[in-house]
Protein backbone atom coordinates (compact mmCIF):
# COMPACT_ATOMS: atom_id res chain seq x y z
CA UNK A 1 0.00 0.00 0.00
CA UNK A 2 1.35 3.39 -0.94
CA UNK A 3 1.64 6.28 1.49
CA UNK A 4 -1.06 8.20 -0.37
CA UNK A 5 -3.44 5.25 -0.15
CA UNK A 6 -2.61 4.74 3.54
CA UNK A 7 -3.09 8.39 4.44
CA UNK A 8 -6.23 8.33 2.28
CA UNK A 9 -7.59 5.53 4.47
CA UNK A 10 -6.76 7.51 7.62
CA UNK A 11 -8.39 10.59 6.11
CA UNK A 12 -11.58 8.76 5.15
CA UNK A 13 -11.52 7.04 8.55
CA UNK A 14 -11.35 10.34 10.40
CA UNK A 15 -14.10 11.76 8.22
CA UNK A 16 -16.41 8.82 8.86
CA UNK A 17 -15.35 9.03 12.50
CA UNK A 18 -17.63 12.08 12.65
CA UNK A 19 -20.42 9.91 11.20
CA UNK A 20 -19.61 7.20 13.76
CA UNK A 21 -19.90 9.72 16.60
CA UNK A 22 -23.28 10.79 15.22
CA UNK A 23 -24.41 7.17 15.03
CA UNK A 24 -23.05 6.65 18.55
CA UNK A 25 -25.37 9.37 19.89
CA UNK A 26 -28.49 7.94 18.26
CA UNK A 27 -27.72 4.24 18.44
CA UNK A 28 -25.82 3.90 21.71
CA UNK A 29 -26.68 6.93 23.84
CA UNK A 30 -30.37 7.24 22.90
CA UNK A 31 -30.96 3.63 21.80
CA UNK A 32 -32.71 5.04 18.73
CA UNK A 33 -31.86 3.16 15.50
CA UNK A 34 -31.71 6.11 13.12
CA UNK A 35 -31.42 5.52 9.37
CA UNK A 36 -31.86 9.23 8.63
CA UNK A 37 -28.07 9.38 8.25
CA UNK A 38 -28.26 7.77 4.79
CA UNK A 39 -30.09 10.94 3.77
CA UNK A 40 -28.50 13.53 6.03
CA UNK A 41 -24.93 12.83 4.85
CA UNK A 42 -25.76 13.71 1.23
CA UNK A 43 -27.97 16.54 2.54
CA UNK A 44 -24.94 18.07 4.23
CA UNK A 45 -22.86 17.50 1.11
CA UNK A 46 -25.52 18.98 -1.17
CA UNK A 47 -26.12 22.01 1.04
CA UNK A 48 -22.43 22.84 1.43
CA UNK A 49 -21.58 22.20 -2.23
CA UNK A 50 -24.44 24.33 -3.53
CA UNK A 51 -23.65 27.19 -1.16
CA UNK A 52 -19.91 27.11 -1.92
CA UNK A 53 -20.55 27.14 -5.66
CA UNK A 54 -22.81 30.14 -5.14
CA UNK A 55 -19.99 32.01 -3.46
CA UNK A 56 -20.51 31.33 0.25
CA UNK A 57 -17.50 30.96 2.50
CA UNK A 58 -16.81 27.22 2.91
CA UNK A 59 -16.76 27.44 6.72
CA UNK A 60 -20.15 29.13 6.77
CA UNK A 61 -21.38 26.55 4.27
CA UNK A 62 -20.38 23.79 6.71
CA UNK A 63 -22.41 25.46 9.45
CA UNK A 64 -25.40 25.73 7.12
CA UNK A 65 -25.00 22.04 6.28
CA UNK A 66 -25.07 21.23 10.00
CA UNK A 67 -28.26 23.25 10.41
CA UNK A 68 -29.84 21.35 7.52
CA UNK A 69 -28.79 18.04 9.08
CA UNK A 70 -30.21 19.08 12.45
CA UNK A 71 -33.51 19.94 10.77
CA UNK A 72 -33.61 16.49 9.15
CA UNK A 73 -32.94 14.88 12.54
CA UNK A 74 -35.70 16.96 14.12
CA UNK A 75 -38.17 15.68 11.51
CA UNK A 76 -37.32 12.06 12.32
CA UNK A 77 -37.52 12.61 16.06
CA UNK A 78 -40.75 14.58 15.67
CA UNK A 79 -42.35 11.79 13.61
CA UNK A 80 -41.43 9.41 16.42
CA UNK A 81 -42.11 11.51 19.51
CA UNK A 82 -45.14 13.52 18.43
CA UNK A 83 -46.81 11.33 15.82
CA UNK A 84 -45.89 8.06 17.51
CA UNK A 85 -44.37 6.42 14.43
CA UNK A 86 -41.93 3.63 15.26
CA UNK A 87 -38.37 5.09 15.41
CA UNK A 88 -36.95 2.84 12.70
CA UNK A 89 -39.83 3.59 10.33
CA UNK A 90 -39.76 7.32 11.13
CA UNK A 91 -36.10 7.47 10.15
CA UNK A 92 -36.67 5.48 6.95
CA UNK A 93 -39.43 7.93 5.99
CA UNK A 94 -37.16 10.92 6.51
CA UNK A 95 -34.36 9.16 4.66
CA UNK A 96 -36.41 8.58 1.49
CA UNK A 97 -37.90 12.07 1.66
CA UNK A 98 -34.37 13.47 1.82
CA UNK A 99 -33.55 11.88 -1.54
CA UNK A 100 -36.00 14.29 -3.20
CA UNK A 101 -34.93 17.15 -0.97
CA UNK A 102 -31.30 16.60 -1.93
CA UNK A 103 -32.18 16.65 -5.63
CA UNK A 104 -34.01 19.93 -5.02
CA UNK A 105 -31.11 21.43 -3.09
CA UNK A 106 -28.63 20.70 -5.88
CA UNK A 107 -31.09 21.03 -8.74
CA UNK A 108 -29.33 18.04 -10.31
CA UNK A 109 -27.92 14.71 -9.11
CA UNK A 110 -24.31 15.89 -8.88
CA UNK A 111 -22.85 19.20 -7.73
CA UNK A 112 -19.16 19.48 -8.55
CA UNK A 113 -16.69 21.29 -6.31
CA UNK A 114 -13.45 20.60 -8.19
CA UNK A 115 -11.30 23.70 -8.23
CA UNK A 116 -13.46 25.58 -5.70
CA UNK A 117 -12.11 27.01 -2.46
CA UNK A 118 -12.77 24.59 0.43
CA UNK A 119 -12.17 24.60 4.17
CA UNK A 120 -8.93 22.78 3.44
CA UNK A 121 -7.52 25.38 1.04
CA UNK A 122 -6.25 27.89 3.64
CA UNK A 123 -4.51 25.08 5.54
CA UNK A 124 -2.84 23.81 2.39
CA UNK A 125 -1.26 27.21 1.94
CA UNK A 126 -0.38 27.42 5.62
CA UNK A 127 1.12 23.98 6.27
CA UNK A 128 4.27 23.22 4.34
CA UNK A 129 3.52 19.56 3.62
CA UNK A 130 2.21 17.65 0.60
CA UNK A 131 -1.59 17.96 0.26
CA UNK A 132 -2.18 14.34 1.22
CA UNK A 133 -0.84 15.10 4.69
CA UNK A 134 -2.81 18.31 5.14
CA UNK A 135 -6.38 16.98 4.84
CA UNK A 136 -5.96 14.21 7.44
CA UNK A 137 -4.27 16.69 9.79
CA UNK A 138 -7.09 19.21 9.47
CA UNK A 139 -9.65 16.42 9.95
CA UNK A 140 -7.77 15.25 13.03
CA UNK A 141 -8.05 18.77 14.45
CA UNK A 142 -11.78 18.90 13.69
CA UNK A 143 -12.44 15.52 15.24
CA UNK A 144 -10.46 16.34 18.39
CA UNK A 145 -12.57 19.49 18.78
CA UNK A 146 -15.76 17.46 18.28
CA UNK A 147 -14.59 14.85 20.81
CA UNK A 148 -13.94 17.51 23.44
CA UNK A 149 -17.26 19.29 22.88
CA UNK A 150 -19.20 16.02 22.75
CA UNK A 151 -17.68 14.77 25.98
CA UNK A 152 -18.40 18.07 27.71
CA UNK A 153 -21.97 17.86 26.46
CA UNK A 154 -22.51 14.25 27.45
CA UNK A 155 -21.31 14.91 30.99
CA UNK A 156 -23.45 18.05 31.36
CA UNK A 157 -26.84 17.85 33.03
CA UNK A 158 -28.57 17.65 29.68
CA UNK A 159 -26.14 15.03 28.42
CA UNK A 160 -26.71 12.91 31.49
CA UNK A 161 -30.46 13.25 30.94
CA UNK A 162 -29.99 12.08 27.39
CA UNK A 163 -27.98 9.06 28.50
CA UNK A 164 -30.62 8.21 31.11
CA UNK A 165 -33.32 8.45 28.41
CA UNK A 166 -31.48 5.90 26.32
CA UNK A 167 -30.82 3.49 29.17
CA UNK A 168 -34.28 3.52 30.71
CA UNK A 169 -36.82 5.93 29.27
CA UNK A 170 -39.53 5.30 31.87
CA UNK A 171 -37.20 5.68 34.79
CA UNK A 172 -35.79 8.85 33.26
CA UNK A 173 -39.27 10.28 32.86
CA UNK A 174 -40.09 9.40 36.46
CA UNK A 175 -37.01 11.39 37.46
CA UNK A 176 -38.45 14.45 35.76
CA UNK A 177 -36.43 14.25 32.54
CA UNK A 178 -38.30 15.36 29.44
CA UNK A 179 -37.45 12.37 27.28
CA UNK A 180 -39.13 13.87 24.20
CA UNK A 181 -36.86 16.90 24.33
CA UNK A 182 -33.89 14.59 24.82
CA UNK A 183 -34.76 12.58 21.73
CA UNK A 184 -35.41 15.67 19.61
CA UNK A 185 -32.12 17.25 20.68
CA UNK A 186 -30.08 14.08 20.42
CA UNK A 187 -31.26 13.03 16.96
CA UNK A 188 -30.86 16.61 15.70
CA UNK A 189 -27.32 16.73 17.08
CA UNK A 190 -26.50 13.33 15.62
CA UNK A 191 -27.67 14.31 12.14
CA UNK A 192 -25.99 17.70 12.33
CA UNK A 193 -22.70 15.87 12.82
CA UNK A 194 -23.40 13.46 9.99
CA UNK A 195 -24.27 16.39 7.72
CA UNK A 196 -21.00 18.09 8.68
CA UNK A 197 -19.19 14.92 7.65
CA UNK A 198 -21.08 15.06 4.34
CA UNK A 199 -20.10 18.70 3.82
CA UNK A 200 -16.42 17.93 4.44
CA UNK A 201 -16.64 14.79 2.33
CA UNK A 202 -17.93 16.74 -0.68
CA UNK A 203 -15.04 19.16 -0.32
CA UNK A 204 -12.48 16.36 -0.22
CA UNK A 205 -14.09 14.25 -2.92
CA UNK A 206 -14.59 17.03 -5.45
CA UNK A 207 -18.36 17.12 -5.33
CA UNK A 208 -21.65 16.08 -3.82
CA UNK A 209 -23.50 13.20 -5.41
CA UNK A 210 -27.07 12.01 -4.84
CA UNK A 211 -25.80 8.44 -4.27
CA UNK A 212 -23.38 9.47 -1.52
CA UNK A 213 -25.52 8.29 1.36
CA UNK A 214 -25.95 4.67 0.35
CA UNK A 215 -24.88 2.43 3.22
CA UNK A 216 -23.60 5.21 5.48
CA UNK A 217 -25.50 3.72 8.42
CA UNK A 218 -23.71 0.40 7.93
CA UNK A 219 -20.31 2.09 7.86
CA UNK A 220 -21.20 4.14 10.94
CA UNK A 221 -22.39 1.09 12.86
CA UNK A 222 -19.36 -0.95 11.82
CA UNK A 223 -17.13 1.82 13.18
CA UNK A 224 -19.04 2.03 16.46
CA UNK A 225 -18.94 -1.75 16.95
CA UNK A 226 -15.30 -2.06 15.89
CA UNK A 227 -14.50 0.70 18.36
CA UNK A 228 -16.31 -1.14 21.11
CA UNK A 229 -14.40 -4.30 20.27
CA UNK A 230 -11.00 -2.66 20.36
CA UNK A 231 -11.40 0.01 23.04
CA UNK A 232 -13.22 -0.31 26.31
CA UNK A 233 -16.70 1.18 26.64
CA UNK A 234 -16.27 1.75 30.34
CA UNK A 235 -16.31 5.53 30.15
CA UNK A 236 -17.98 7.82 27.65
CA UNK A 237 -14.61 9.33 26.72
CA UNK A 238 -13.19 5.92 25.81
CA UNK A 239 -16.37 4.96 23.97
CA UNK A 240 -16.28 8.10 21.82
CA UNK A 241 -12.57 7.72 21.08
CA UNK A 242 -13.40 4.11 20.21
CA UNK A 243 -15.83 5.32 17.52
CA UNK A 244 -13.07 7.26 15.79
CA UNK A 245 -10.52 4.47 16.13
CA UNK A 246 -13.10 1.97 14.88
CA UNK A 247 -13.80 4.14 11.87
CA UNK A 248 -10.09 4.40 11.02
CA UNK A 249 -9.67 0.63 11.45
CA UNK A 250 -12.62 0.05 9.14
CA UNK A 251 -11.05 2.20 6.42
CA UNK A 252 -7.67 0.54 6.80
CA UNK A 253 -9.48 -2.77 6.38
CA UNK A 254 -11.13 -1.46 3.21
CA UNK A 255 -7.75 -0.28 1.93
CA UNK A 256 -6.36 -3.75 2.66
CA UNK A 257 -9.29 -5.33 0.84
CA UNK A 258 -8.53 -3.06 -2.13
CA UNK A 259 -5.03 -4.52 -2.10
CA UNK A 260 -6.18 -8.10 -1.73
CA UNK A 261 -5.46 -8.97 -5.35
CA UNK A 262 -2.22 -10.66 -4.31
CA UNK A 263 -4.24 -13.48 -2.74
CA UNK A 264 -6.40 -13.89 -5.83
CA UNK A 265 -9.30 -11.74 -4.78
CA UNK A 266 -10.89 -9.38 -7.25
CA UNK A 267 -12.66 -6.06 -7.27
CA UNK A 268 -16.10 -7.59 -6.88
CA UNK A 269 -15.03 -9.32 -3.66
CA UNK A 270 -14.37 -6.03 -1.88
CA UNK A 271 -17.50 -5.91 0.26
CA UNK A 272 -17.18 -9.59 1.20
CA UNK A 273 -13.54 -9.18 2.21
CA UNK A 274 -14.41 -6.08 4.21
CA UNK A 275 -17.23 -7.89 6.04
CA UNK A 276 -14.99 -10.87 6.86
CA UNK A 277 -12.19 -8.65 8.12
CA UNK A 278 -14.59 -6.67 10.29
CA UNK A 279 -16.01 -9.90 11.75
CA UNK A 280 -12.45 -11.05 12.50
CA UNK A 281 -11.56 -7.76 14.12
CA UNK A 282 -14.67 -7.99 16.26
CA UNK A 283 -14.35 -11.60 17.36
CA UNK A 284 -10.59 -11.96 17.78
CA UNK A 285 -10.34 -10.02 21.06
CA UNK A 286 -13.03 -12.24 22.64
CA UNK A 287 -11.44 -15.42 21.30
CA UNK A 288 -8.05 -14.42 22.63
CA UNK A 289 -9.50 -13.66 26.04
CA UNK A 290 -11.13 -17.08 26.13
CA UNK A 291 -7.89 -18.69 25.04
CA UNK A 292 -5.93 -16.83 27.73
CA UNK A 293 -8.47 -17.90 30.36
CA UNK A 294 -8.25 -21.55 29.34
CA UNK A 295 -4.48 -21.38 29.50
CA UNK A 296 -4.52 -19.88 32.98
CA UNK A 297 -6.93 -22.56 34.18
CA UNK A 298 -4.65 -25.25 32.78
CA UNK A 299 -1.66 -23.61 34.41
CA UNK A 300 -3.36 -23.51 37.80
Amino acid at each position, binding site marked *: MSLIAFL*GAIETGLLFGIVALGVFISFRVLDFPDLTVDGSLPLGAATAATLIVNGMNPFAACLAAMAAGAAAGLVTAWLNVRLGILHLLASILTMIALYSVNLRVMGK*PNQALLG*EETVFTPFENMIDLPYYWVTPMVLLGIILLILILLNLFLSSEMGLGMRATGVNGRMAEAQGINTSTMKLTGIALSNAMVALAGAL*FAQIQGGADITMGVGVIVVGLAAVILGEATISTRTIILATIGCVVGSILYRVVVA*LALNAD*FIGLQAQDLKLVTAVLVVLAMT*LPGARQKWAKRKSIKGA
Partner: protein
Amino acid sequence: MMKKIFTAMMGAALLATSATAAFADSKTVKITSIVEHPALDAARKGVKDVLAENGYVDGKSLNWEFQSAQGDVGIAGQIAKKFVGAAPDVIVAIATPSAQAAVAAARGRIPVVFSAVTDPVSAKLVKQWEKPGGAVTGVSDMLPLEKHLGLITDALPHAKTVGVPYNPGETNAVVLVEGFKKIAESKGIKVVTASAPSSGDVLMAVRSLVGKVDAIYVTTDNTIVSAFESVVKVGMDAKIPVFAGDTGSVERGAAAALGFNYYDIGRQTGQIVLDILNGKKAGDINVQGVEKTNLHVNTESAAKMGLSLSDAMVKKAEKVVK
Protein backbone atom coordinates in the same frame (compact mmCIF):
# COMPACT_ATOMS: atom_id res chain seq x y z
CA MET B 1 -5.38 -5.62 23.50
CA MET B 2 -6.64 -2.82 21.31
CA LYS B 3 -3.14 -1.51 20.88
CA LYS B 4 -1.91 -4.86 19.62
CA ILE B 5 -4.69 -5.24 17.08
CA PHE B 6 -4.20 -1.69 15.96
CA THR B 7 -0.45 -2.11 15.44
CA ALA B 8 -0.98 -5.45 13.73
CA MET B 9 -3.43 -3.91 11.30
CA MET B 10 -1.31 -0.88 10.55
CA GLY B 11 1.66 -3.18 10.04
CA ALA B 12 -0.29 -5.40 7.68
CA ALA B 13 -1.49 -2.33 5.84
CA LEU B 14 2.02 -1.11 5.24
CA LEU B 15 3.27 -4.59 4.33
CA ALA B 16 0.67 -5.10 1.65
CA THR B 17 2.52 -2.88 -0.74
CA SER B 18 1.33 -3.36 -4.26
CA ALA B 19 4.18 -4.98 -6.10
CA THR B 20 4.21 -3.13 -9.39
CA ALA B 21 5.57 -5.30 -12.14
CA ALA B 22 8.74 -3.70 -13.38
CA PHE B 23 8.73 -4.40 -17.10
CA ALA B 24 10.94 -1.93 -18.86
CA ASP B 25 8.40 -0.92 -21.53
CA SER B 26 5.18 -1.98 -19.86
CA LYS B 27 2.48 0.58 -19.12
CA THR B 28 0.19 0.74 -16.13
CA VAL B 29 -3.48 1.57 -16.56
CA LYS B 30 -5.77 1.66 -13.52
CA ILE B 31 -9.47 1.73 -14.12
CA THR B 32 -12.30 2.34 -11.67
CA SER B 33 -16.06 2.46 -11.87
CA ILE B 34 -18.63 3.65 -9.34
CA VAL B 35 -20.70 0.48 -9.79
CA GLU B 36 -20.72 -2.58 -11.98
CA HIS B 37 -23.65 -2.83 -14.36
CA PRO B 38 -23.90 -3.99 -17.97
CA ALA B 39 -23.46 -0.58 -19.62
CA LEU B 40 -20.48 0.44 -17.51
CA ASP B 41 -18.92 -3.02 -17.76
CA ALA B 42 -19.24 -2.83 -21.56
CA ALA B 43 -17.43 0.52 -21.51
CA ARG B 44 -14.61 -1.02 -19.49
CA LYS B 45 -14.35 -3.92 -21.92
CA GLY B 46 -14.16 -1.46 -24.81
CA VAL B 47 -11.17 0.28 -23.25
CA LYS B 48 -9.35 -2.98 -22.64
CA ASP B 49 -10.08 -4.32 -26.15
CA VAL B 50 -8.67 -1.25 -27.88
CA LEU B 51 -5.52 -1.42 -25.78
CA ALA B 52 -5.10 -5.15 -26.52
CA GLU B 53 -5.61 -4.61 -30.26
CA ASN B 54 -2.80 -2.07 -30.17
CA GLY B 55 -0.27 -4.27 -28.46
CA TYR B 56 -0.96 -3.49 -24.83
CA VAL B 57 -1.87 -6.93 -23.56
CA ASP B 58 -2.84 -7.36 -19.93
CA GLY B 59 -0.16 -9.26 -18.03
CA LYS B 60 2.48 -8.72 -20.71
CA SER B 61 3.01 -5.19 -21.91
CA LEU B 62 0.15 -3.82 -19.84
CA ASN B 63 -0.32 -3.69 -16.12
CA TRP B 64 -4.12 -3.43 -15.85
CA GLU B 65 -6.07 -3.09 -12.64
CA PHE B 66 -9.79 -2.64 -12.13
CA GLN B 67 -11.51 -1.62 -8.91
CA SER B 68 -15.23 -1.12 -8.44
CA ALA B 69 -16.47 1.19 -5.69
CA GLN B 70 -19.60 -0.98 -5.50
CA GLY B 71 -21.85 2.02 -5.21
CA ASP B 72 -20.01 3.55 -2.26
CA VAL B 73 -18.67 7.05 -2.84
CA GLY B 74 -16.35 6.77 0.18
CA ILE B 75 -14.74 3.71 -1.33
CA ALA B 76 -14.50 5.52 -4.67
CA GLY B 77 -12.34 8.08 -2.88
CA GLN B 78 -10.14 5.40 -1.36
CA ILE B 79 -9.73 3.67 -4.72
CA ALA B 80 -8.75 6.99 -6.29
CA LYS B 81 -6.10 7.52 -3.65
CA LYS B 82 -4.85 3.97 -3.99
CA PHE B 83 -4.45 4.50 -7.73
CA VAL B 84 -2.73 7.85 -7.37
CA GLY B 85 -0.36 6.36 -4.81
CA ALA B 86 0.65 3.67 -7.31
CA ALA B 87 1.53 6.36 -9.89
CA PRO B 88 0.16 4.62 -13.02
CA ASP B 89 0.52 5.99 -16.56
CA VAL B 90 -3.21 6.62 -16.88
CA ILE B 91 -6.22 6.44 -14.58
CA VAL B 92 -9.53 5.69 -16.27
CA ALA B 93 -12.65 6.60 -14.27
CA ILE B 94 -16.11 5.50 -15.33
CA ALA B 95 -19.17 7.61 -14.33
CA THR B 96 -19.26 11.00 -12.63
CA PRO B 97 -18.62 10.24 -8.92
CA SER B 98 -15.61 8.04 -9.70
CA ALA B 99 -14.26 10.61 -12.14
CA GLN B 100 -14.58 13.44 -9.62
CA ALA B 101 -12.83 11.36 -6.96
CA ALA B 102 -10.02 10.47 -9.37
CA VAL B 103 -9.51 14.06 -10.53
CA ALA B 104 -9.58 15.34 -6.92
CA ALA B 105 -6.98 12.75 -5.88
CA ALA B 106 -4.73 13.00 -8.96
CA ARG B 107 -4.37 16.79 -8.74
CA GLY B 108 -3.12 17.03 -12.27
CA ARG B 109 -0.08 14.84 -11.67
CA ILE B 110 -1.49 11.72 -13.31
CA PRO B 111 -3.59 11.82 -16.49
CA VAL B 112 -7.24 10.95 -15.83
CA VAL B 113 -9.46 9.78 -18.67
CA PHE B 114 -13.14 9.73 -17.76
CA SER B 115 -15.82 7.73 -19.54
CA ALA B 116 -19.62 7.71 -19.51
CA VAL B 117 -19.84 11.12 -17.84
CA THR B 118 -22.85 12.97 -19.24
CA ASP B 119 -21.77 16.54 -18.68
CA PRO B 120 -18.04 16.77 -17.86
CA VAL B 121 -18.09 20.58 -17.81
CA SER B 122 -20.81 20.94 -15.17
CA ALA B 123 -19.13 18.05 -13.29
CA LYS B 124 -16.07 20.38 -13.31
CA LEU B 125 -13.82 17.66 -14.65
CA VAL B 126 -12.77 19.91 -17.51
CA LYS B 127 -13.22 23.60 -18.29
CA GLN B 128 -14.30 23.02 -21.89
CA TRP B 129 -14.61 20.25 -24.46
CA GLU B 130 -12.03 21.61 -26.90
CA LYS B 131 -8.43 21.36 -25.69
CA PRO B 132 -9.47 20.96 -22.05
CA GLY B 133 -5.96 21.67 -20.68
CA GLY B 134 -4.67 20.19 -17.43
CA ALA B 135 -4.40 16.43 -17.23
CA VAL B 136 -8.04 15.40 -17.71
CA THR B 137 -10.01 14.42 -20.79
CA GLY B 138 -12.44 11.69 -21.76
CA VAL B 139 -15.68 10.65 -23.40
CA SER B 140 -19.16 11.87 -22.58
CA ASP B 141 -22.26 9.71 -22.93
CA MET B 142 -24.44 12.74 -23.62
CA LEU B 143 -27.07 11.90 -26.23
CA PRO B 144 -25.91 12.92 -29.72
CA LEU B 145 -28.71 15.49 -29.91
CA GLU B 146 -27.45 17.03 -33.14
CA LYS B 147 -27.54 13.65 -34.84
CA HIS B 148 -30.99 13.01 -33.43
CA LEU B 149 -32.24 16.27 -34.90
CA GLY B 150 -30.55 15.29 -38.16
CA LEU B 151 -32.48 12.03 -38.18
CA ILE B 152 -35.76 13.89 -37.79
CA THR B 153 -34.98 16.40 -40.54
CA ASP B 154 -33.74 13.61 -42.84
CA ALA B 155 -36.98 11.71 -42.43
CA LEU B 156 -39.15 14.82 -42.45
CA PRO B 157 -37.42 17.52 -44.53
CA HIS B 158 -40.34 19.91 -44.13
CA ALA B 159 -40.61 19.66 -40.37
CA LYS B 160 -40.85 23.10 -38.77
CA THR B 161 -41.72 22.22 -35.17
CA VAL B 162 -40.78 19.28 -33.00
CA GLY B 163 -42.66 18.35 -29.84
CA VAL B 164 -40.74 17.04 -26.86
CA PRO B 165 -42.63 15.54 -23.92
CA TYR B 166 -40.47 15.44 -20.79
CA ASN B 167 -40.55 15.19 -17.02
CA PRO B 168 -39.41 18.52 -15.56
CA GLY B 169 -38.51 16.71 -12.33
CA GLU B 170 -35.89 14.57 -13.99
CA THR B 171 -32.58 16.38 -14.12
CA ASN B 172 -31.23 14.33 -16.97
CA ALA B 173 -34.37 15.02 -18.99
CA VAL B 174 -34.21 18.77 -18.37
CA VAL B 175 -30.60 18.93 -19.51
CA LEU B 176 -31.42 17.01 -22.69
CA VAL B 177 -34.49 19.09 -23.54
CA GLU B 178 -32.59 22.34 -23.05
CA GLY B 179 -29.71 21.08 -25.17
CA PHE B 180 -32.07 19.90 -27.89
CA LYS B 181 -33.91 23.22 -27.92
CA LYS B 182 -30.67 25.13 -28.40
CA ILE B 183 -29.53 22.96 -31.30
CA ALA B 184 -32.93 22.92 -33.00
CA GLU B 185 -33.47 26.66 -32.72
CA SER B 186 -30.03 27.36 -34.18
CA LYS B 187 -31.26 25.47 -37.23
CA GLY B 188 -34.58 27.31 -37.42
CA ILE B 189 -36.70 24.54 -35.98
CA LYS B 190 -39.13 25.32 -33.20
CA VAL B 191 -39.37 23.07 -30.16
CA VAL B 192 -42.63 22.76 -28.25
CA THR B 193 -42.38 21.04 -24.89
CA ALA B 194 -45.07 19.27 -22.90
CA SER B 195 -44.45 18.39 -19.29
CA ALA B 196 -45.44 15.08 -17.75
CA PRO B 197 -44.45 14.86 -14.09
CA SER B 198 -45.40 11.18 -13.89
CA SER B 199 -45.94 8.34 -16.33
CA GLY B 200 -49.70 8.71 -15.87
CA ASP B 201 -49.51 12.23 -17.32
CA VAL B 202 -47.70 11.24 -20.49
CA LEU B 203 -50.80 10.58 -22.60
CA MET B 204 -52.30 13.98 -21.82
CA ALA B 205 -49.00 15.77 -22.33
CA VAL B 206 -48.46 14.22 -25.75
CA ARG B 207 -52.07 14.95 -26.76
CA SER B 208 -51.44 18.61 -25.97
CA LEU B 209 -48.85 18.58 -28.76
CA VAL B 210 -51.30 17.45 -31.45
CA GLY B 211 -51.90 20.14 -34.02
CA LYS B 212 -48.83 22.08 -32.96
CA VAL B 213 -45.98 19.86 -34.08
CA ASP B 214 -44.74 17.97 -37.16
CA ALA B 215 -42.81 15.34 -35.21
CA ILE B 216 -42.40 14.09 -31.66
CA TYR B 217 -39.00 13.40 -30.15
CA VAL B 218 -38.50 11.48 -26.91
CA THR B 219 -35.12 11.66 -25.13
CA THR B 220 -33.91 9.07 -22.60
CA ASP B 221 -36.37 10.57 -20.09
CA ASN B 222 -37.30 7.68 -17.80
CA THR B 223 -40.84 8.91 -17.19
CA ILE B 224 -41.73 9.28 -20.87
CA VAL B 225 -39.92 6.11 -21.92
CA SER B 226 -41.76 4.10 -19.26
CA ALA B 227 -45.06 5.19 -20.83
CA PHE B 228 -43.77 5.10 -24.40
CA GLU B 229 -46.85 3.24 -25.67
CA SER B 230 -48.95 6.35 -24.93
CA VAL B 231 -46.67 8.43 -27.13
CA VAL B 232 -46.91 5.87 -29.94
CA LYS B 233 -50.69 5.76 -29.66
CA VAL B 234 -51.03 9.54 -30.04
CA GLY B 235 -48.49 9.48 -32.87
CA MET B 236 -50.54 6.91 -34.77
CA ASP B 237 -53.92 8.52 -34.03
CA ALA B 238 -52.81 12.00 -35.05
CA LYS B 239 -50.35 10.90 -37.77
CA ILE B 240 -47.33 12.49 -36.13
CA PRO B 241 -44.10 10.48 -36.51
CA VAL B 242 -42.39 9.64 -33.21
CA PHE B 243 -38.58 9.54 -32.94
CA ALA B 244 -36.70 8.21 -29.93
CA GLY B 245 -33.31 8.71 -28.31
CA ASP B 246 -32.75 5.02 -27.65
CA THR B 247 -33.08 2.03 -29.95
CA GLY B 248 -35.10 0.03 -27.43
CA SER B 249 -38.08 2.31 -28.07
CA VAL B 250 -38.18 1.37 -31.75
CA GLU B 251 -39.48 -2.08 -30.91
CA ARG B 252 -42.11 -0.41 -28.77
CA GLY B 253 -43.32 1.61 -31.74
CA ALA B 254 -41.08 4.59 -32.45
CA ALA B 255 -40.62 5.24 -36.17
CA ALA B 256 -36.85 5.50 -35.89
CA ALA B 257 -34.02 6.04 -33.39
CA LEU B 258 -30.29 6.62 -33.42
CA GLY B 259 -28.87 4.84 -30.41
CA PHE B 260 -25.40 4.09 -29.16
CA ASN B 261 -23.88 1.46 -26.97
CA TYR B 262 -21.48 1.71 -24.10
CA TYR B 263 -18.99 -0.71 -25.61
CA ASP B 264 -18.35 1.86 -28.36
CA ILE B 265 -18.00 4.61 -25.75
CA GLY B 266 -15.41 2.40 -24.07
CA ARG B 267 -13.58 1.96 -27.37
CA GLN B 268 -13.47 5.72 -27.85
CA THR B 269 -12.12 6.04 -24.30
CA GLY B 270 -9.55 3.34 -25.04
CA GLN B 271 -8.36 5.29 -28.07
CA ILE B 272 -7.71 8.32 -25.85
CA VAL B 273 -5.84 6.15 -23.32
CA LEU B 274 -3.77 4.79 -26.18
CA ASP B 275 -2.91 8.30 -27.38
CA ILE B 276 -1.74 9.22 -23.89
CA LEU B 277 0.34 6.04 -23.56
CA ASN B 278 1.92 6.96 -26.89
CA GLY B 279 2.99 10.32 -25.55
CA LYS B 280 0.12 12.73 -26.15
CA LYS B 281 -0.88 15.08 -23.35
CA ALA B 282 -4.36 14.57 -21.92
CA GLY B 283 -5.01 18.31 -21.89
CA ASP B 284 -4.41 18.50 -25.66
CA ILE B 285 -7.00 15.84 -26.45
CA ASN B 286 -10.54 17.11 -26.98
CA VAL B 287 -13.33 15.68 -24.90
CA GLN B 288 -15.44 13.52 -27.18
CA GLY B 289 -19.12 12.88 -27.49
CA VAL B 290 -20.80 9.79 -28.85
CA GLU B 291 -19.40 9.06 -32.31
CA LYS B 292 -20.85 5.74 -33.34
CA THR B 293 -24.61 5.43 -33.52
CA ASN B 294 -26.87 2.66 -34.71
CA LEU B 295 -30.02 3.38 -36.66
CA HIS B 296 -33.08 1.28 -35.87
CA VAL B 297 -36.32 1.82 -37.81
CA ASN B 298 -39.85 0.51 -37.53
CA THR B 299 -41.43 0.63 -41.00
CA GLU B 300 -44.87 -0.48 -39.84
CA SER B 301 -45.09 2.15 -37.11
CA ALA B 302 -43.76 4.81 -39.45
CA ALA B 303 -46.46 3.99 -42.01
CA LYS B 304 -49.16 4.19 -39.34
CA MET B 305 -47.80 7.59 -38.33
CA GLY B 306 -48.06 8.77 -41.92
CA LEU B 307 -44.35 8.66 -42.58
CA SER B 308 -42.84 6.71 -45.43
CA LEU B 309 -39.20 6.07 -44.62
CA SER B 310 -36.96 6.41 -47.65
CA ASP B 311 -35.39 3.23 -49.02
CA ALA B 312 -31.97 4.73 -48.35
CA MET B 313 -32.77 5.16 -44.69
CA VAL B 314 -34.19 1.66 -44.33
CA LYS B 315 -31.12 0.27 -46.07
CA LYS B 316 -28.85 2.17 -43.69
CA ALA B 317 -30.66 0.85 -40.62
CA GLU B 318 -28.90 -1.75 -38.55
CA LYS B 319 -32.23 -3.18 -37.53
CA VAL B 320 -35.61 -2.94 -39.23
CA VAL B 321 -38.74 -3.75 -37.22
CA LYS B 322 -41.69 -4.61 -39.44
